[in-house]
């Protein structure tokens, strides 16, 4: 009995050590950093201060937070609307088709997202493919200025993060017991009613994990705003990057990161609570 346990300890040891040193360690250091002072020339001075957090409350930086949040919200909402039906329909396909669809869903994950975004630049630019087609069809006269605007960033976010949502919804819908839907229909529920009361309710965990998987990254994907937004919109991500590199104010960057972390943690806790409540309802 003792030997069994000791071999399990050896198995888990690498994970324990690696997680403590390279995940917990840096995060704890970040918190410490956020309460320290930036040195005059380079580096950090260890003196406890709340200056970095006070600085965030300045209107310029507060605005950045709001804008990031808004963008993440918009993108996630669109991703839900587009991704949920996809994952749900996919779960209803025959086994053979499921496999084929899965292959084509995995492929974009493999292709570098920057190069895929570059494809959108070619499509969306003023003299690009989209404007060319729209003008040829006579729908518009002057080329639309989509690239380097807010909608272009949203397009990029949705495009990069959509597969996460689809896979998340699919894995939840795949486990769905379809006989429950059938039972609801037999008992006289309309197609829509059966969907909302049975299928949708049971796939909510998938939808929520999809939201977490898309909402949180979309606040940090500064390169999308950079490439498709042309630096016009400053997101929290861009601000942190700037403070770490050109600004050389690591403590302020750390404070920004801590606030972002707290916000996202709150979101995860909130979602956990919502899913738990839903599960309890299902049992009752």
């Amino acid at each position: 009995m003792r030997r069994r346990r000791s071999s399990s300890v050896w198995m888990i040891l690498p994970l324990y050590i690696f997680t403590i040193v390279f995940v917990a360690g840096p995060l704890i250091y970040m918190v410490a950093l956020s309460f320290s002072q930036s040195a005059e020339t380079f580096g950090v001075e260890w003196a406890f201060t709340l200056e970095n957090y006070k600085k965030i409350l300045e209107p310029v930086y507060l605005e950045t937070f709001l804008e990031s949040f808004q963008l993440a919200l918009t993108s996630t909402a669109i991703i839900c609307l587009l991704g949920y039906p996809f994952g749900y329909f996919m779960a209803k396909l025959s086994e053979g088709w499921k496999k084929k669809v899965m292959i084509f869903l995995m492929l974009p994950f493999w292709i570098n997202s920057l190069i895929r975004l570059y494809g959108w630049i070619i499509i969306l630019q003023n003299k690009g493919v989209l404007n060319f087609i729209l003008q040829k069809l006579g729908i518009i006269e002057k080329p639309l200025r989509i690239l380097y605007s807010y909608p272009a960033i949203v397009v990029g976010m949705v495009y990069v993060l959509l597969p996460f949502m689809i896979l998340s919804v699919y894995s939840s819908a795949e486990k769905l017991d379809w006989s429950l839907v059938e039972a609801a229909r037999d008992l006289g529920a309309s197609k829509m009613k059966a969907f909302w009361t049975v299928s949708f309710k049971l796939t909510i965990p998938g939808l929520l994990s999809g939201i977490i998987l898309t909402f949180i990254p979309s606040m940090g994907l500064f390169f999308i705003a950079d490439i498709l937004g042309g630096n016009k919109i400053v997101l929290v991500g861009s601000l942190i990057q700037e403070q770490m590199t050109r600004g050389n104010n690591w403590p302020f960057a750390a404070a920004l990161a801590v606030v972002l972390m707290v916000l996202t943690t709150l979101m995860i806790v909130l979602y956990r609570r919502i899913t738990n409540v839903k599960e309890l309802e299902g049992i009752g």
Partner: protein
Amino acid sequence: MKKNSRFSGIYLGIIFFLMYLPVVVVIIFSFNESKLPVRFSGFSLTWYQELFQDEDMLEALKNSLILGVSSCLLSAVIGTLGAVGLARIKWRTKGILEYVSILPLMIPEIILGMVLMAFFYLLNIPFGMLTLLLGHTVFCVPYILMEVKARLAGMDPALEEAARDLGAGSFRAFWDITLPLIMPAVMSGSLLAFAMSMDDVVISIFINGPRLSTLPIKVYTQLKTGVTPEINALCTLMLVFTIVIFLLYLLVRKISKGKNILFSTGEK
């Protein structure tokens, strides 16, 4: 009831069309004669020739591959052993550890990047391949951990117990029974990790150091400062490369599935 309307087929088709449209556009323009990716003016292989003469690009490609493979292997070992170990032990810190080890997927990439940069600087580890490897492993482990954990949850624990009752040691039971059964999850997790490592720009950009460049970093700087049509050629080649590896993966999985029939409990 488990029936699909025609609408759903059309819907999947439209989303796939939009998903692949930019990729197709890049491929088409990689053969474009003109330097500007505005209109297709004629077929040419110029950009491929230039790409193969660009030593910086080749160097970056090499770095990306080394990094992707090594971080994927390292995290596969840590993640797989960890997931199996987590299922066996009953320590009180287990829950916290699991939460912290999956954190890298939960927190924005940018935070992970800056935090690792500051931390490596604190530890005095010189920025380069080592920091990139460690950084990429940080976000690769959770993919494998989660995949394997899900597979373990669906597994019949009686199988391993039976092996132990028949006298197999704990490690033997893992190697002969558990590992073959979770292999598909290890593979899919590793492939996802590999893809994420090859794709990553946000974390790499913080910890790559002044000299070392990966392919995504190269592409990123070009997209910011000015694009050369080489990128189209590069993407097309990567796409071919990707599909080859992907097909290989499907093949391996098919073989491993055949092997698993020996162990599975009647499910197909």
